[in-house]
């Protein structure tokens, strides 16, 4: 059938498109008109990334049949800058750091522009109402609200952009160095570009948690669908059919060789033209299934092995033992015990996995969203059986990661397809497939006990954690190793016995998710402190202050913390707010009691510490800066997934070198063009790559001073491409180079977990104030106060952005997020916080400098999240007396806990 011609008025231009009327407007904009600023996060109306305006009103382009848009004015992010308010809004977003990864940004901007068209100075409630349909997983929404409310100030120019002079960048609120593309909608995410003529790849995934399967004859399918070019199965993998984080555990097959181990496991891939792949129904595929009884956490220990290599289903056991915890607990004046259970949590980055691969002679190039380009490089080389030099990874802009894009997803299969077919091949995972196949936060079942003496001083702590690692190892060993080190929290505990095991089941692989298992442990640990504080008759904050680690203390792993232990400073900063919030809650409760109200108010507290970088393992980073005829170039291989490393590292490098940030050109990520900076995980990029950037800046500075024969205090300047040292021109015929490398000093843990697991730790304490509806079991958050010791805030706006975003994810963990395989594989049933779910957040930045870090800085990415859920659960208990042992604290669970 021929498609009718439709006339669309897009950003003021008339565009003629030939398409069936029911085609989604989003498809037309992106694929026909090349307007890829409109993003696709779910294709189902749930995320709002595709928000455009039709006749001025915001609409999800993925829900609009193009026939209903024909004849109407469609406005997309590409046209925003043409209007004064649109331009002001974009600049306000940059100024306030309202865009992190940037995948939600076009949708946010379009939704906000509708609001601002009617009301230039909206209040917070109006902003929340207007933006309620756009999800952001990175920012916690606070800076977006600020930016929208402040946009009017940028109409008449607004505040000048922060442009620090040479040597003054660290500590400044510099706007993101990669921000313009994000607010303009021109950043290239995995789904936004592909080489011409690229074929598409569609993975075929298991609908069963555990099953054997056999393929029948593919010929009839290939004959029925001429556009289907090739079916790839295990037999087609040129190299090793396995990938995995650890060099000795490549246990996850690219294509399962006959048995699938979780719902979402990949058994084969179809490659062909897009329409042909979309037309193929799953029922048509020649696959004969023999479902098997899945192994669950209930029966994994002592049950059938999920993988033959681990007969007892225990992947790894992590332990920390110091002193005699049992004896200490027996002798304690007060003791408390708790058992908690948490579920799978989905990363829910708004950008589903997407990218392409192409063969270039005897090399392969892969462009995809990732947090770890060099690990992708090793995996791709492994599955293709190629030397690593034959692989080039080009990270796309990454629309959120949070640990979920540390594992490869589509990269190996794209590479195999492109290699064998000698044609570019691309893929975009639909939301449901992304959620079914990707890694999750480990569900945990934790039993913990603790004791204190009459004065409230902690005596002993025992922790037993079973962490469900799912079907494949992924980051399971990292979680099992990190948890026991952190399980007792940032406190002086003389006797500790902590054990965590990562256990296989036929569920999705649990991998890395902001905090590597520590957030789950912190929930148990902080609940115990509340009870012990009550038992000892101490205020909950003062109990923590009494026991808090201080500089000079020795941890349960035997490590002496010499510097940068800012927990006491965090608690001191919180104390006046704690008292005020508690008084407010008490007054509200008194009022409710008098009036028969059914809302109970409460305030909670949670503390945390977090080791920066890998646990007792080398994790180096290398940075390179060059100065030559091509100018000043910062080669930075650290992937910025929205957290801001591109900007923070630039600030560090600039100050170390002594030139302003705007003098640099950036070369980012590409494994052919940059050095290995290690992965963007474990909150390590500011600390580890930041230190490497500082070293690189210093090294280049020395090279310059040597060439100019100038002293250490010499002032550098770049003017019209010429280098001036103390005002004197210095020739740049040959390129000068500064290379910096840093590997944080650690010592591997022994069998009892003794050693130096991390070179430094982040510390934090957070307060949550909330009310609980006693009849509905709902929680209304009123305020969160977060005090974080970050060593040094290289860029306070970025640090606050990380804290806000981490808190939003902590809210989700505490109150709503629970991934159930087969039931919540979309953003309709899997709930993440919306703009209305994140209350006002006050950030208190504490700077206890870390001598090893660049300008004293440590990390913030994961610390931001860890304390939030404990603080919220502590507040629920304060309000109602109920201790939640099953997380998330869904309303029905709160009512059940109230009845107990």
């Amino acid at each position: 059938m021929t498609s009718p011609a439709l006339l669309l008025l897009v950003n003021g231009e008339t565009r003629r498109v030939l398409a069936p009327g029911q085609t989604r407007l989003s498809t037309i904009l992106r694929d026909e008109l090349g307007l890829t600023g409109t993003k696709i996060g779910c294709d189902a109306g749930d995320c709002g990334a595709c928000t455009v305006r039709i006749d001025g009103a915001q609409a999800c382009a993925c829900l609009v049949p193009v026939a209903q848009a024909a004849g109407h004015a469609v406005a997309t992010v590409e046209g925003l800058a043409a209007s004064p308010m649109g331009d002001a809004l974009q600049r306000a977003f940059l100024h306030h750091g309202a865009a992190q990864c940037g995948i939600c940004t076009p949708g946010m901007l379009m939704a906000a522009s509708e609001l601002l068209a009617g009301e230039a100075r909206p209040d917070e409630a109006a902003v929340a109402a207007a933006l309620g349909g756009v999800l952001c997983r990175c920012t916690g929404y606070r800076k977006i609200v600020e930016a929208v409310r402040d946009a009017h100030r940028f109409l008449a120019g607004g505040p000048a952009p922060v442009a620090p002079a040479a040597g003054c960048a660290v500590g400044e609120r510099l706007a993101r160095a990669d921000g313009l593309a994000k607010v303009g909608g021109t950043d290239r995410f995995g789904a936004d570009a592909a080489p011409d003529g690229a074929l598409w790849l569609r993975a075929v995934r298991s609908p069963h948690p555990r099953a054997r399967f056999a393929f029948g004859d593919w010929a009839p399918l290939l004959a029925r669908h001429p556009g289907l070019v090739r079916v790839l199965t295990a037999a087609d993998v040129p190299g090793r059919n396995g990938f995995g984080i650890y060099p000795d555990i490549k246990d996850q097959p690219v294509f399962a060789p006959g048995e699938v181990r979780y719902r979402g496991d990949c058994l084969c891939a179809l490659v062909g033209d897009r329409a042909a792949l979309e037309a193929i129904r799953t029922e048509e595929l020649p696959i004969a299934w023999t479902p098997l009884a899945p192994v669950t956490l209930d029966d994994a220990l002592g049950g059938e092995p999920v993988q033959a290599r681990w007969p007892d289903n225990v992947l790894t056991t992590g332990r920390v033992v110091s002193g005699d915890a049992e004896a200490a607990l027996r002798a304690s004046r007060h003791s408390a015990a708790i058992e908690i259970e948490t579920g799978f949590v989905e990363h829910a980055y708004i950008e589903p996995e997407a990218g392409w691969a192409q063969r270039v002679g005897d090399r392969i190039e892969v462009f995809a969203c990732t947090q770890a380009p060099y690990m992708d490089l090793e995996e791709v080389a492994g599955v293709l059986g190629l030397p690593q030099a034959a692989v080039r990874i080009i990270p796309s802009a990454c629309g959120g990661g949070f640990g979920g894009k540390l594992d490869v997803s589509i990269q190996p299969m794209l590479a195999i397809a492109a290699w064998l077919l000698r044609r570019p091949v691309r893929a975009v995972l639909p939301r449901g497939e992304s959620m079914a196949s990707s890694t999750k936060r480990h569900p945990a079942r934790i039993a913990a006990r603790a004791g204190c003496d009459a004065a409230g001083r902690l005596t002993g702590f025992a922790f037993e954690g079973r962490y469900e690692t799912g079907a494949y190892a992924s980051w399971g060993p990292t979680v099992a190793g990190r948890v026991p080190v952190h399980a007792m929290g940032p406190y002086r505990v003389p006797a500790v016995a902590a054990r965590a095991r990562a256990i296989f089941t036929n569920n999705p692989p649990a991998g890395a998710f902001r905090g590597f298992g520590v957030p789950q442990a912190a929930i148990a640990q902080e609940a115990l402190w509340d009870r012990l504080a009550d038992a000892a008759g101490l205020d909950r904050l003062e109990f923590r202050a009494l026991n808090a680690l201080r500089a000079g203390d020795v941890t349960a792993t035997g490590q002496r913390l010499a510097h940068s232990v800012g927990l006491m400073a965090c608690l001191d900063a919180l104390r006046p707010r704690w008292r005020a919030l508690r008084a407010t809650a008490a007054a509200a409760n008194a009022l409710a009691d008098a009036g028969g109200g059914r809302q109970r108010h409460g305030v909670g507290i949670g503390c945390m510490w977090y080791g920066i970088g890998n646990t007792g393992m080398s994790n180096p980073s290398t940075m390179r800066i060059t100065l030559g005829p091509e100018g000043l170039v910062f080669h930075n291989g650290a992937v910025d997934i929205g957290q801001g490393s591109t900007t923070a590292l630039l600030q560090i490098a600039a100050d170390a070198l002594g030139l302003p940030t705007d003098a640099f050109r950036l070369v980012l990520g590409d494994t052919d063009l940059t050095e290995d900076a290690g992965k963007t995980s474990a909150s390590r990029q500011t600390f580890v790559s930041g230190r490497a950037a500082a070293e690189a800046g210093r090294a280049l500075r020395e090279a310059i001073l040597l060439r100019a024969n100038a002293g250490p205090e010499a002032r550098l300047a770049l003017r019209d491409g010429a280098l001036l040292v103390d005002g004197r021109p210095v020739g740049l015929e040959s390129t000068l180079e500064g290379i910096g490398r840093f590997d944080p000093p650690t010592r591997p843990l022994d069998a009892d977990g003794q050693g130096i697991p991390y070179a430094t730790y982040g510390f934090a304490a957070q307060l949550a104030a909330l009310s609980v509806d006693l009849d509905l079991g709902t929680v209304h958050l009123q305020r969160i106060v977060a005090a974080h010791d970050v060593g040094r805030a290289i860029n306070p706006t970025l640090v606050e952005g990380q804290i806000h975003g981490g808190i939003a994810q902590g809210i989700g963990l505490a109150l709503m997020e629970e991934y159930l395989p087969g039931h919540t594989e979309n953003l309709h049933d899997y709930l993440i916080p919306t703009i209305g779910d994140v209350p006002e957040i006050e950030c208190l930045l504490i700077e206890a400098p870390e001598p090893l870090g660049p300008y004293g800085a440590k990390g913030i990415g994961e610390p931001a999240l860890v304390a939030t859920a404990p603080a919220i659960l502590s507040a629920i208990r304060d309000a109602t007396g109920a201790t939640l042992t099953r997380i998330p604290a869904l309303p029905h669970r709160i009512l059940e806990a109230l009845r107990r």
Partner: protein
Amino acid sequence: MTDIRYLAPGTLDEAVNAFAAAAGAARILAGGTDLLVQMRAGVVRPGVIVDIKKIAEMTTIEETPEGGFRIGAAVSGARLAEHPRFGKAWPGVLEAVNLIGSKQVQGRASPGGNLCNASPAGDSVPAMIAAGAVVTVQGPHGRRQMPVEAVPAGPGRTNLTPGEILVSFTLPPRPAGSGDAYLRMIPRTEMDIAVVGCGVSLTLEGGKVTAARVGLGAVAPTPLLVGPAAEALIGSRLEEEALAAAAAACSAACRPIDDKRGTIAYRTKVAGVLLRRTAAIAAERAGRA
């Protein structure tokens, strides 16, 4: 996908003819906020799509000569909110319609689509039931009317006969002293499907309830008209005993399921809690009207 025929007729008769001619292979498209999602998921694969947004009768809001309202089935929630008088007469129905999805969804989604999609949790339905709305449907055999609660037959199924299209909702005139309200319970603050929804419409005279209707959503395979709850309220002054009896009637009417959003016990209890709270708001509005 390309083998779908997309029709956008300008009159109801054309739409009915095209819909009937396709004999089951066709789907009506209003705002598309359910239909496009279901098509994308492969749950629905229509051969013909009949877009009803170009039909005047289905996209207008009228005041009836008797003083009620007639709302075209394909009117969007945003349009209903813009009407100068509708929200004053039926604030509860309006708030229910405007709880459907986000701003983006409200600009498109229609009460007709909400009803015909036949989700047990459709937000506008309990409020329409409480309002005593009557729907007009037209099919190959002509027009007929039925009470709104008679439309849903079960999850995803309606009692419309093959070829019938829902044309409009008619809401009765409002006597003095009337008010309505709708409340739903969701775990998230917005953009979520009701765990329980409750609509209440009341008429008060001198503080005494003279008329009442109660609708409940998400607690049974279809939204419910809860007669016993209304009876418990009629004749009362909304004293504790009357509210307790009405709440108990709501809980008793529940035939919910256990799912990820809530347990049977939870939904049953919350139905009663919401009845009390919704009735209080409706009464407060009635007192002002």
